[in-house]
């Protein structure tokens, strides 16, 4: 039972990755669709996409850091 924290950290890291994956996947899909509809707006859309991806990734990384803390407490 001592290593149950490790299982928790592993599951947590996986869930954080799934969440970020879904988020960034949906974001990129919409961004690429918009770019295809309005190619002249590509620059602005790409900028907004990277910015939002950074935010989503930031949330996932919070999760990962907490999992790391659980492993190496």
């Amino acid at each position, binding site marked *: 039972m001592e290593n149950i924290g490790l299982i928790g950290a592993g599951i947590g890291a996986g869930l954080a990755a799934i969440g970020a994956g879904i988020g960034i996947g949906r974001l990129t899909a919409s961004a690429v669709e918009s770019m295809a509809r309005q190619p002249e707006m590509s620059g602005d859309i790409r*900028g907004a996409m*990277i*910015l939002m991806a950074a935010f989503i*990734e930031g949330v996932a990384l*919070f999760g990962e850091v907490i999992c790391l803390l659980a492993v190496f407490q």
Partner: protein
Amino acid sequence: MIIRKSLILILLTIISCGYIRAEDTDSTHSEEFNISETLFHHILDSHDWHLVDIPTGETDAHGDPVYKPVALHLPWLFYSSKTGLEFYANTHAMHEAGKYVSHHEHVYAVAEGQSVPHEYHGHGELENSEEIIDESVTIYDLSPSKTVVQIFLIGLLLVWLLSSVAKSYAKREGQAPKGMQSLMEPIILFVRDDIAKEYLGEKAEKFAPYLLSLFFFIWFSNMFGLMPFNSNIMGNISVTAALAFLSFILIQVNGSKDYWRHTFAMPGVPIAIVPLMTIIEVLSLFIKPIALAIRLFANITAGHFMVLSLVCLIFLMGESGKNLGGAFGIMPVSIVFTLAILTLEVIVAIIQAYIFTLLTAVFIGMARETHDDHH
């Protein structure tokens, strides 16, 4: 073309092989390869700039070859509550003096009547550490670590590089850029036009110097961190936290009247909700820079963990040299994956520099904003 491509491939392979260094064998003889110890040895900050281990040709009592470490020993400078300010040229000199001992990259006072074992060089396990270390003495460690030295080196490099570019602009006014100018101009223009002007408007010129310094410092640190023999700077949370703190100060100093009103008394919401909104807004003041620091730290650390874990696969499968077939079997897989991850890391190095700079600019822009819609 093929020659150029294969040269690049060879260069990248050499860079990735730089991670495969001989492990410390001067500590106690270990039966099995300890992956987390190796990972942390390479990722954490240290007090010796360990470059390489040279085989001496001798063998120890277990029949293992003995390596002589080649390292740059950094000085110790700390304030101790027992004897005041102390300075030692290196760890060896400190242990010779016998009053203080370095243990797990921290300095401790040696208890009365105890002495540092002669064979202990500052890394590995210190036997009877509870008896030797006197925990009651408080020590404020000010010594420059590997990361600190590396930060200064990168600072000097950037000052030299960018001031030489600036000089050549002054000298070659109105002419096409030449040499280093051609490399730096698009990057500087990108930061100024696509980050500063985009989010800060007409005040972009005022913030461009800070944003440019931030961008180049993070980018260069990340790139140096990927090379062998260099310290992992942005994988150190203290460094990213310090950068985020600078951005935090800049955001607050440039806050407009509307920014503070929206923080402490959100207009246009029912009066009962205002205290709750204030709590959330004040928290978000701090969460923004904390997220900046953690994002950069976690991205760079994750990359280093990936690369090092893949390289450690060789040692794991090879069982530290006992299973040569396993080591050679996993080696191509490990090298190919390391190469792929390192290529990704080169991109991540510049993307993280971009995101940190961009978010700083966005937050400053948000703080400077004045709202004319008073709901």
